[in-house]
């Protein structure tokens, strides 16, 4: 799409090549790791599916069970074909779009708005760099990386005995998920002067588009799925009829958004946003470190709380009809194996969905937990810590919000779901809050890293959360068992709605102790180390 613009924008594109090399240099570790992990996943899931469900009959019964499981419908959508390929595409389609979409958003904002906000772009823009070059370079790299990981996944699938054509379509569908959100972030990066807001709007848009697809598949409103990239990446139907033309929708979507982003970028000043900055108060009332932290965290927390509340309300509505609507023998059997004969279908649904959503809550908590390191890296901590504010008090002022964040979000999620489901707020909220210690453990890991490895805190924390997600996915296919599986804190959370654990308090207490120990160790290391700005 940058190609079609070259005619009219040659001058404004000058320097794109230089900027592409700069991005590749800065992300020389991240890009290959991301591409390699995503490209390897499809072949390993395909081979695990082959091992687990060797016969068509086994695959059919698995597919039938999954098709009647609303949680699976909400997360992954319908199964189009119960072949090895069809099941692989179903298992990974939505997850890869989520993962690729998130990374694409983060990368796009990192190389567009963050560069402007920090003033680094100014330095480059004064050189021979066209007005559109930064956006073009970021888009080129992110789109190419998505395409590459999609294409690289094909040989593994083909080697596993899957048809080449469908495998290529599956690979391209994976790329399409990343493409769509790269384009979304290209737009949001133009809107506001703050990179945090730009990132937040893009992620919120992603959440909404995912919820739209969920609603389409659980509520039986099929046409809704055609309105969202999360629908398109499944509607290409690889290994199940191969609808290649759906990729055309993605291409149109990406082209339209990219053209709009380029148009927006000509309407604003460097480092400015389209939403103008208003003057604020001439005098401040921030009472100190805690007041400042509250100010810095409140926007993010409010946004996430509203988002998870809305998500919960949506889930409650979706779960309403389940107990009658999905009262099939298959699903009752599934419910019985998971939660005993008495288990309600809606409870099985909530249990599944909360497990996945708790990891999203952990991601949100991580954003808050990493804020202190962000302040230090930017050099803002230097100024505050030159006042009588001590290091521990400063760290605690941010930690309070990282600890409070999951309390708020899990409560919002559970309360909203309970309210719209049957009005029994306490029951569902109890189930979501059971994830609190697991999320705190993730916060504890981030705090430990903050004390020990300041420069790597963000990267390693996100990697750890990503690995927990990966472990869960692999566990589903029995690729991760025993001690590896036990490494994920989320695995240890009892399903209180299903009453599966005889003593739910023990694992929760254990996780809380781990979280507290990690956090305390992190703070102790922080007091002993040098302050390390990123420059």
């Amino acid at each position, binding site marked *: 799409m940058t190609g079609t613009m070259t005619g009219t924008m040659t001058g404004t594109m000058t320097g794109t090549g230089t900027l592409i090399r700069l991005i590749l240099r800065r992300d020389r570790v991240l890009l290959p790791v991301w591409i390699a992990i995503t490209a390897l996943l499809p072949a390993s899931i395909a081979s695990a599916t082959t091992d687990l469900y060797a016969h068509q009959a086994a695959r059919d019964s698995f597919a039938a069970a999954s098709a009647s499981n609303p949680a699976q419908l909400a997360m992954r959508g319908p199964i189009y074909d119960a072949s090895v390929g069809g099941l692989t595409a179903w298992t990974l389609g939505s997850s890869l779009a989520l993962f690729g979409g998130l990374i694409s958003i983060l990368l796009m904002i990192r190389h567009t708005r963050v560069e402007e906000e920090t003033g680094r772009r100014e330095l480059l823009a004064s050189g021979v760099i066209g007005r559109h070059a930064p956006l073009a370079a970021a888009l080129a790299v992110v789109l190419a990386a998505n395409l590459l990981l999609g294409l690289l996944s094909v040989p593994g699938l083909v080697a596993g005995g899957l048809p080449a054509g469908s495998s290529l379509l599956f690979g391209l569908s994976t790329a399409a998920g990343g493409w769509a959100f790269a384009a979304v972030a290209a737009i949001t990066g133009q809107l506001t002067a703050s990179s945090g807001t730009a990132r937040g709007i893009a992620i919120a848009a992603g959440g909404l588009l995912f919820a739209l697809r969920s609603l389409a598949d659980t509520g039986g409103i099929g046409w809704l799925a055609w309105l969202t990239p999360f629908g398109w990446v499944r509607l290409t139907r690889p290994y199940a009829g191969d609808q290649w033309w759906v990729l055309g929708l993605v291409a149109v979507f990406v082209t339209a958004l990219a053209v709009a982003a380029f148009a927006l970028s000509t309407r604003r000043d460097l480092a400015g946003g389209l939403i103008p900055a208003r003057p604020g*108060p001439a005098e401040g009332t921030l009472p100190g470190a805690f007041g400042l932290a509250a100010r810095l965290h409140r926007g993010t927390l409010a946004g996430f709380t509203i988002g998870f509340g809305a998500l919960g309300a949506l889930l409650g509505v979706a779960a309403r009809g389940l107990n009658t609507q999905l009262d099939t023998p298959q699903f009752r059997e599934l419910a019985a194996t998971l939660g005993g004969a008495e288990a309600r279908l809606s409870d099985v649904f909530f249990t599944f969905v909360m497990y996945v959503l708790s990891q999203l809550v952990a991601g949100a908590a991580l954003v808050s937990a990493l804020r202190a390191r962000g302040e230090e890296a930017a050099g803002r901590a230097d100024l505050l810590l030159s006042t009588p504010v001590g290091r521990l008090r400063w760290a605690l002022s941010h930690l309070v919000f990282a600890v409070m964040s999951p309390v708020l979000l899990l409560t919002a999620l559970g309360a909203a779901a309970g309210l719209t489901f049957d009005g029994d707020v306490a029951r569902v909220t109890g189930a979501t809050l059971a994830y609190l210690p697991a999320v705190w453990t993730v916060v504890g890991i981030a705090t430990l890293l903050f004390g020990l490895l300041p420069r790597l805190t963000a990267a390693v924390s996100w990697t750890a959360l990503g690995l927990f997600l990966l472990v869960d996915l692999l566990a589903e296919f029995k690729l991760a068992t025993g001690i590896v599986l036990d490494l994920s804190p989320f695995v240890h959370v009892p399903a209180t709605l299903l009453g599966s654990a005889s003593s739910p308090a023990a694992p929760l207490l254990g996780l809380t102790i781990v979280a507290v120990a990690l956090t305390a160790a992190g703070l102790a290391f922080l007091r002993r180390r040098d302050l390390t700005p990123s420059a």
Partner: protein
Amino acid sequence: MNAAVHAGGLVKSFGRAKALDGLDLTVKTGEVHGFLGPNGAGKTTTIRILLGQLRADGGQVALLGGDPWRDATELHRRLAYVPGDVTLWPSLTGGEVIDLLGRARGGLDPRQRAELLERFELDPRKKCRTYSKGNRQKVALVAAFASDAELLILDEPTSGLDPLMEAVFNECVLREKRAGRTVLLSSHILSEVETLCDRVSIVRAGRTVESGTLADLRHLTRTSVTAELIGPAPGLAVLPGVHNLTVDGARLRCQVDSDALTPVLAELARAGVRALTTQPPTLEELFLRHYEGATR
């Protein structure tokens, strides 16, 4: 205790890079002390040790009579700091940051705050995101000058200010000095140090190479002498302490070591002087001499 800062033999390494290699620094209470050195000499590292942000690998350091690492919080009640590269919270206004820092330091004088805002021509209602480097620096300066700290640590505080604002800054520092406060001023801008500082320490490659009053340091360097003579002065060329002698008809130029000035003037008087100019060494020359040391 009459030293606000006393550091001896400071050593600090970052990985294999040695930032400080036995640095000494003494700042007496009530003086304005210039901390001079080229980029990368170790000025900021020293200041960050003084602020308890870094822990020295070796040497001793005392700040206001305490240990800057162990007693950081207590000591910070008594000082104000302006970093060389001021980064502020993009979503806060300048006024909010000034008040935040002021409150954290135990309050600031609202009259002074208003006066400083006016003198520095800073709009406190703007979001920090929109401030230029110079304006961000002004925010930190206003917060520091409006506090009643007894020690000001200023790390290249004028690097983003225009000449007019530099003049305002100079007045503010002199006022602090008159109020009996101690100022540690790191800089590579020599004129600034020359007008403001009682004593200077010159650092290079993590070591203090010279320290003392400007007068002390001047003896280390040469006075430029330009003269128009009536008769020849042949003895000049062989006098010790005379350098770069050029004679152009009756005009003569040379550089003279401070302790050779008397015999040089005697020799000139013997020849007869029609006009004479002598210039004290500028700090530039002082500086150049130390920088050249690196390449020599």
